[in-house]
Protein backbone atom coordinates (compact mmCIF):
# COMPACT_ATOMS: atom_id res chain seq x y z
CA UNK A 1 0.00 0.00 0.00
CA UNK A 2 2.88 2.41 0.86
CA UNK A 3 4.51 1.45 -2.45
CA UNK A 4 1.27 2.22 -4.34
CA UNK A 5 0.90 5.57 -2.57
CA UNK A 6 4.55 6.50 -3.31
CA UNK A 7 4.08 5.60 -6.98
CA UNK A 8 1.00 7.85 -7.16
CA UNK A 9 2.83 10.76 -5.54
CA UNK A 10 5.70 10.31 -8.01
CA UNK A 11 3.19 10.48 -10.88
CA UNK A 12 1.59 13.62 -9.39
CA UNK A 13 5.03 15.27 -9.01
CA UNK A 14 6.10 14.27 -12.52
CA UNK A 15 2.88 15.61 -14.04
CA UNK A 16 3.24 18.88 -12.12
CA UNK A 17 6.84 19.25 -13.37
CA UNK A 18 5.80 18.46 -16.94
CA UNK A 19 2.88 20.90 -17.09
CA UNK A 20 4.56 23.64 -15.04
CA UNK A 21 8.04 23.34 -16.52
CA UNK A 22 8.59 26.97 -17.55
CA UNK A 23 11.46 27.57 -15.12
CA UNK A 24 12.17 31.06 -16.48
CA UNK A 25 8.75 32.16 -15.26
CA UNK A 26 9.61 31.29 -11.66
CA UNK A 27 12.95 33.09 -12.00
CA UNK A 28 11.56 36.31 -13.50
CA UNK A 29 8.02 36.56 -12.08
CA UNK A 30 6.48 36.46 -15.55
CA UNK A 31 4.26 33.86 -17.20
CA UNK A 32 4.71 31.67 -20.28
CA UNK A 33 3.08 33.15 -23.39
CA UNK A 34 3.50 30.35 -25.95
CA UNK A 35 0.93 28.51 -28.07
CA UNK A 36 0.61 25.43 -25.79
CA UNK A 37 -1.59 27.57 -23.56
CA UNK A 38 -4.36 27.06 -26.12
CA UNK A 39 -4.75 23.58 -24.61
CA UNK A 40 -6.29 22.91 -21.22
CA UNK A 41 -4.52 20.59 -18.82
CA UNK A 42 -6.89 18.12 -17.13
CA UNK A 43 -6.34 19.27 -13.50
CA UNK A 44 -6.90 22.53 -11.61
CA UNK A 45 -3.74 24.37 -12.68
CA UNK A 46 -3.89 28.17 -12.85
CA UNK A 47 -2.68 29.57 -16.17
CA UNK A 48 -1.15 32.49 -14.31
CA UNK A 49 1.23 30.15 -12.48
CA UNK A 50 4.70 31.35 -13.63
CA UNK A 51 5.59 27.81 -14.75
CA UNK A 52 2.28 26.86 -16.39
CA UNK A 53 2.57 25.59 -19.97
CA UNK A 54 -1.17 24.92 -20.39
CA UNK A 55 -4.48 26.42 -19.33
CA UNK A 56 -6.72 25.65 -16.37
CA UNK A 57 -10.00 24.14 -17.65
CA UNK A 58 -12.12 25.95 -15.04
CA UNK A 59 -10.39 29.29 -15.74
CA UNK A 60 -10.78 28.72 -19.48
CA UNK A 61 -14.45 27.83 -19.13
CA UNK A 62 -15.10 31.10 -17.29
CA UNK A 63 -12.96 33.04 -19.77
CA UNK A 64 -15.13 31.86 -22.67
CA UNK A 65 -18.43 32.21 -20.80
CA UNK A 66 -17.67 35.71 -19.48
CA UNK A 67 -16.49 37.00 -22.87
CA UNK A 68 -18.96 39.00 -24.91
CA UNK A 69 -18.45 36.71 -27.93
CA UNK A 70 -19.79 33.38 -26.60
CA UNK A 71 -22.67 32.13 -24.46
CA UNK A 72 -21.52 28.47 -24.39
CA UNK A 73 -18.10 26.89 -24.61
CA UNK A 74 -18.02 23.92 -26.98
CA UNK A 75 -14.21 23.88 -26.77
CA UNK A 76 -13.76 23.63 -23.00
CA UNK A 77 -16.80 21.40 -22.40
CA UNK A 78 -15.51 19.19 -25.23
CA UNK A 79 -12.06 18.88 -23.66
CA UNK A 80 -13.61 18.18 -20.23
CA UNK A 81 -15.75 15.49 -21.84
CA UNK A 82 -12.68 13.89 -23.43
CA UNK A 83 -10.76 13.84 -20.12
CA UNK A 84 -13.86 12.72 -18.21
CA UNK A 85 -14.90 9.93 -20.57
CA UNK A 86 -11.39 8.49 -20.62
CA UNK A 87 -10.36 8.90 -16.99
CA UNK A 88 -13.18 10.23 -14.80
CA UNK A 89 -11.68 11.38 -11.50
CA UNK A 90 -8.34 9.65 -12.12
CA UNK A 91 -7.42 13.25 -12.99
CA UNK A 92 -8.11 14.30 -9.36
CA UNK A 93 -6.14 11.47 -7.81
CA UNK A 94 -3.16 11.41 -10.15
CA UNK A 95 -2.89 14.60 -12.21
CA UNK A 96 -4.16 17.55 -10.18
CA UNK A 97 -1.43 19.78 -8.66
CA UNK A 98 -3.69 21.15 -5.92
CA UNK A 99 -4.83 17.63 -5.04
CA UNK A 100 -1.15 16.70 -4.71
CA UNK A 101 -0.53 19.60 -2.32
CA UNK A 102 -3.50 18.54 -0.18
CA UNK A 103 -2.19 14.94 -0.15
CA UNK A 104 1.16 16.19 1.17
CA UNK A 105 -0.40 18.52 3.77
CA UNK A 106 -2.56 15.63 5.08
CA UNK A 107 0.65 13.72 5.82
CA UNK A 108 1.70 16.30 8.46
CA UNK A 109 1.80 14.27 11.67
CA UNK A 110 0.69 15.28 15.17
CA UNK A 111 -2.95 16.06 14.42
CA UNK A 112 -5.93 13.79 15.00
CA UNK A 113 -7.30 12.98 11.55
CA UNK A 114 -11.06 13.00 10.95
CA UNK A 115 -12.79 11.57 7.91
CA UNK A 116 -15.27 14.35 7.18
CA UNK A 117 -16.58 17.73 8.29
CA UNK A 118 -19.81 17.74 10.36
CA UNK A 119 -22.75 17.86 7.92
CA UNK A 120 -20.75 15.94 5.30
CA UNK A 121 -23.84 14.46 3.62
CA UNK A 122 -25.10 17.94 2.77
CA UNK A 123 -21.73 19.62 2.27
CA UNK A 124 -20.61 17.07 -0.32
CA UNK A 125 -23.13 18.62 -2.73
CA UNK A 126 -21.44 22.05 -2.49
CA UNK A 127 -19.12 21.48 -5.51
CA UNK A 128 -22.19 21.22 -7.78
CA UNK A 129 -23.50 24.54 -6.42
CA UNK A 130 -20.06 26.15 -6.89
CA UNK A 131 -19.96 24.82 -10.46
CA UNK A 132 -23.43 26.05 -11.31
CA UNK A 133 -23.20 29.51 -9.75
CA UNK A 134 -19.51 30.54 -9.58
CA UNK A 135 -18.31 28.90 -12.82
CA UNK A 136 -21.32 28.99 -15.14
CA UNK A 137 -24.16 31.36 -14.14
CA UNK A 138 -22.43 34.34 -12.50
CA UNK A 139 -19.67 34.72 -15.16
CA UNK A 140 -22.29 34.43 -17.94
CA UNK A 141 -25.05 36.60 -16.46
CA UNK A 142 -23.38 39.31 -14.35
CA UNK A 143 -21.84 41.43 -17.11
CA UNK A 144 -20.85 45.06 -17.66
CA UNK A 145 -22.18 47.31 -20.44
CA UNK A 146 -19.65 45.78 -22.85
CA UNK A 147 -21.14 42.33 -22.14
CA UNK A 148 -18.01 41.13 -20.30
CA UNK A 149 -18.28 39.28 -17.00
CA UNK A 150 -15.80 38.13 -14.35
CA UNK A 151 -14.33 34.74 -13.46
CA UNK A 152 -16.15 34.49 -10.10
CA UNK A 153 -14.67 31.18 -9.02
CA UNK A 154 -11.09 32.36 -9.70
CA UNK A 155 -11.76 35.73 -8.19
CA UNK A 156 -13.28 34.68 -4.87
CA UNK A 157 -12.75 30.98 -4.23
CA UNK A 158 -9.90 29.26 -6.06
CA UNK A 159 -7.09 28.51 -3.56
CA UNK A 160 -5.05 26.81 -6.29
CA UNK A 161 -4.68 30.12 -8.15
CA UNK A 162 -3.57 31.84 -4.96
CA UNK A 163 -0.97 29.17 -4.17
CA UNK A 164 0.50 28.54 -7.62
CA UNK A 165 0.03 31.99 -9.19
CA UNK A 166 -0.89 34.69 -6.66
CA UNK A 167 1.82 34.10 -4.08
CA UNK A 168 4.76 33.52 -6.50
CA UNK A 169 3.81 36.50 -8.68
CA UNK A 170 3.23 38.88 -5.76
CA UNK A 171 6.53 37.80 -4.17
CA UNK A 172 8.56 38.27 -7.37
CA UNK A 173 6.78 41.13 -9.11
CA UNK A 174 6.99 44.48 -7.31
CA UNK A 175 4.20 46.19 -9.28
CA UNK A 176 1.80 43.34 -8.45
CA UNK A 177 2.93 43.52 -4.83
CA UNK A 178 1.90 47.18 -4.73
CA UNK A 179 -1.49 46.36 -6.27
CA UNK A 180 -2.32 43.56 -3.82
CA UNK A 181 -5.14 44.61 -1.54
CA UNK A 182 -8.18 43.31 0.30
CA UNK A 183 -9.14 40.74 -2.32
CA UNK A 184 -5.67 39.24 -2.18
CA UNK A 185 -6.01 38.99 1.61
CA UNK A 186 -9.41 37.31 1.17
CA UNK A 187 -7.89 34.78 -1.22
CA UNK A 188 -4.98 34.12 1.15
CA UNK A 189 -7.55 33.53 3.93
CA UNK A 190 -9.43 30.98 1.78
CA UNK A 191 -6.14 29.23 1.01
CA UNK A 192 -5.13 29.15 4.70
CA UNK A 193 -8.55 27.79 5.69
CA UNK A 194 -8.34 25.01 3.09
CA UNK A 195 -4.76 24.15 4.03
CA UNK A 196 -5.62 24.19 7.75
CA UNK A 197 -8.52 21.80 7.16
CA UNK A 198 -6.34 19.64 4.90
CA UNK A 199 -4.08 18.81 7.86
CA UNK A 200 -7.00 17.07 9.63
CA UNK A 201 -9.35 16.11 6.78
CA UNK A 202 -8.32 14.34 3.58
CA UNK A 203 -8.67 16.70 0.58
CA UNK A 204 -11.31 19.13 1.93
CA UNK A 205 -11.22 21.26 -1.23
CA UNK A 206 -11.91 18.23 -3.45
CA UNK A 207 -14.69 17.05 -1.12
CA UNK A 208 -16.51 20.33 -0.56
CA UNK A 209 -15.61 22.96 -3.17
CA UNK A 210 -13.95 21.77 -6.38
CA UNK A 211 -16.13 22.36 -9.47
CA UNK A 212 -13.74 20.39 -11.67
CA UNK A 213 -14.13 17.33 -9.45
CA UNK A 214 -17.91 17.76 -9.71
CA UNK A 215 -17.66 17.59 -13.52
CA UNK A 216 -15.32 14.58 -13.61
CA UNK A 217 -17.37 12.84 -10.89
CA UNK A 218 -20.34 12.75 -13.27
CA UNK A 219 -18.21 10.61 -15.61
CA UNK A 220 -16.99 8.10 -13.00
CA UNK A 221 -19.76 5.60 -13.77
CA UNK A 222 -19.32 5.72 -17.55
CA UNK A 223 -15.61 6.52 -18.02
CA UNK A 224 -13.52 3.95 -19.85
CA UNK A 225 -11.41 3.65 -16.65
CA UNK A 226 -13.71 2.29 -13.93
CA UNK A 227 -13.56 0.01 -10.93
CA UNK A 228 -15.39 -3.29 -10.64
CA UNK A 229 -16.15 -5.48 -7.61
CA UNK A 230 -15.91 -9.24 -8.04
CA UNK A 231 -18.85 -10.23 -5.86
CA UNK A 232 -17.66 -13.81 -5.72
CA UNK A 233 -14.44 -12.66 -4.06
CA UNK A 234 -15.67 -9.75 -1.90
CA UNK A 235 -16.06 -10.77 1.75
CA UNK A 236 -17.56 -7.38 2.72
CA UNK A 237 -14.87 -6.76 5.34
CA UNK A 238 -15.12 -2.98 4.61
CA UNK A 239 -11.33 -2.59 4.62
CA UNK A 240 -11.76 -0.58 1.40
CA UNK A 241 -14.07 1.93 3.08
CA UNK A 242 -11.84 2.25 6.14
CA UNK A 243 -8.77 3.11 4.06
CA UNK A 244 -10.65 5.45 1.69
CA UNK A 245 -9.81 9.10 2.35
CA UNK A 246 -13.00 10.15 0.57
CA UNK A 247 -15.03 7.81 2.85
CA UNK A 248 -16.70 5.85 0.06
CA UNK A 249 -18.39 2.46 0.51
CA UNK A 250 -16.26 1.06 -2.31
CA UNK A 251 -17.61 -2.48 -1.86
CA UNK A 252 -21.13 -1.15 -2.58
CA UNK A 253 -20.42 1.70 -4.98
CA UNK A 254 -17.01 1.35 -6.66
CA UNK A 255 -17.76 4.10 -9.18
CA UNK A 256 -19.05 6.74 -6.77
CA UNK A 257 -18.85 10.35 -8.04
CA UNK A 258 -16.63 11.15 -5.04
CA UNK A 259 -14.01 8.48 -5.84
CA UNK A 260 -10.71 10.09 -6.93
CA UNK A 261 -9.28 6.71 -8.05
CA UNK A 262 -6.30 6.89 -5.72
CA UNK A 263 -6.32 3.08 -5.67
CA UNK A 264 -5.80 2.70 -1.89
CA UNK A 265 -8.86 0.39 -1.75
CA UNK A 266 -7.41 -1.92 -4.41
CA UNK A 267 -4.09 -2.08 -2.59
CA UNK A 268 -5.70 -2.97 0.76
CA UNK A 269 -8.32 -5.47 -0.42
CA UNK A 270 -7.40 -8.87 1.13
CA UNK A 271 -9.10 -10.89 -1.63
CA UNK A 272 -8.21 -8.70 -4.65
CA UNK A 273 -11.92 -8.23 -5.31
CA UNK A 274 -11.50 -4.69 -6.70
CA UNK A 275 -10.14 -4.33 -10.20
CA UNK A 276 -10.00 -1.60 -12.80
CA UNK A 277 -11.16 -1.90 -16.39
CA UNK A 278 -7.49 -1.76 -17.44
CA UNK A 279 -6.66 -4.80 -15.29
CA UNK A 280 -9.71 -6.63 -16.62
CA UNK A 281 -8.57 -5.94 -20.17
CA UNK A 282 -5.04 -7.16 -19.35
CA UNK A 283 -6.41 -10.39 -17.83
CA UNK A 284 -8.66 -10.93 -20.83
CA UNK A 285 -5.69 -10.55 -23.19
CA UNK A 286 -3.58 -12.92 -21.08
CA UNK A 287 -6.35 -15.55 -21.19
CA UNK A 288 -6.51 -15.15 -24.97
CA UNK A 289 -2.74 -15.71 -25.27
CA UNK A 290 -2.93 -18.87 -23.10
Amino acid at each position, binding site marked *: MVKQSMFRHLCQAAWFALTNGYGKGFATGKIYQGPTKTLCVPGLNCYSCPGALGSCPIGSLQAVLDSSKFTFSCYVFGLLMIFGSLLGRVVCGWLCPFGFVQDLVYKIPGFRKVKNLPGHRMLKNLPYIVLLFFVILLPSLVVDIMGTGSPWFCEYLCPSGTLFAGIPLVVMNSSLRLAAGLRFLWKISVLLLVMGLAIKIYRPFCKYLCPLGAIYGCFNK*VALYRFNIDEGRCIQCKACQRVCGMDIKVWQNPNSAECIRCGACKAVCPTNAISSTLEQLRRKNERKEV
Partner: protein
Amino acid sequence: MSMNKRNLPGWGFLFLGIALTAAGIVRSEHETVLTKAVNICLECIGIG
Protein backbone atom coordinates in the same frame (compact mmCIF):
# COMPACT_ATOMS: atom_id res chain seq x y z
CA MET B 1 -23.48 -7.18 -19.45
CA SER B 2 -20.22 -7.62 -21.37
CA MET B 3 -17.39 -5.14 -20.86
CA ASN B 4 -17.70 -3.89 -24.44
CA LYS B 5 -21.36 -2.95 -23.92
CA ARG B 6 -20.57 -1.28 -20.58
CA ASN B 7 -17.93 0.81 -22.35
CA LEU B 8 -20.39 2.15 -24.92
CA PRO B 9 -21.42 5.31 -22.97
CA GLY B 10 -17.73 6.09 -22.38
CA TRP B 11 -16.94 5.84 -26.09
CA GLY B 12 -20.05 7.88 -26.88
CA PHE B 13 -18.98 10.71 -24.58
CA LEU B 14 -15.43 10.54 -25.95
CA PHE B 15 -16.61 11.04 -29.53
CA LEU B 16 -19.06 13.74 -28.45
CA GLY B 17 -16.19 15.47 -26.64
CA ILE B 18 -14.00 15.34 -29.74
CA ALA B 19 -16.86 16.73 -31.86
CA LEU B 20 -17.52 19.55 -29.36
CA THR B 21 -13.82 20.43 -29.17
CA ALA B 22 -13.67 20.58 -32.98
CA ALA B 23 -16.78 22.79 -33.03
CA GLY B 24 -15.13 25.06 -30.45
CA ILE B 25 -12.02 25.39 -32.62
CA VAL B 26 -14.18 26.25 -35.65
CA ARG B 27 -15.85 28.95 -33.52
CA SER B 28 -12.35 30.23 -32.51
CA GLU B 29 -13.02 29.69 -28.80
CA HIS B 30 -9.46 28.43 -28.41
CA GLU B 31 -8.23 31.93 -29.30
CA THR B 32 -10.23 33.38 -26.40
CA VAL B 33 -8.64 30.78 -24.11
CA LEU B 34 -5.15 31.60 -25.40
CA THR B 35 -5.66 35.36 -25.07
CA LYS B 36 -6.77 34.94 -21.46
CA ALA B 37 -4.00 32.46 -20.61
CA VAL B 38 -1.01 34.39 -21.96
CA ASN B 39 -1.80 37.46 -19.86
CA ILE B 40 -1.53 37.48 -16.09
CA CYS B 41 -5.09 36.96 -14.83
CA LEU B 42 -5.30 39.59 -12.11
CA GLU B 43 -8.65 38.28 -10.83
CA CYS B 44 -7.19 34.76 -10.51
CA ILE B 45 -4.39 35.95 -8.26
CA GLY B 46 -6.65 38.20 -6.20
CA ILE B 47 -5.77 41.58 -7.71
CA GLY B 48 -7.90 43.73 -9.95
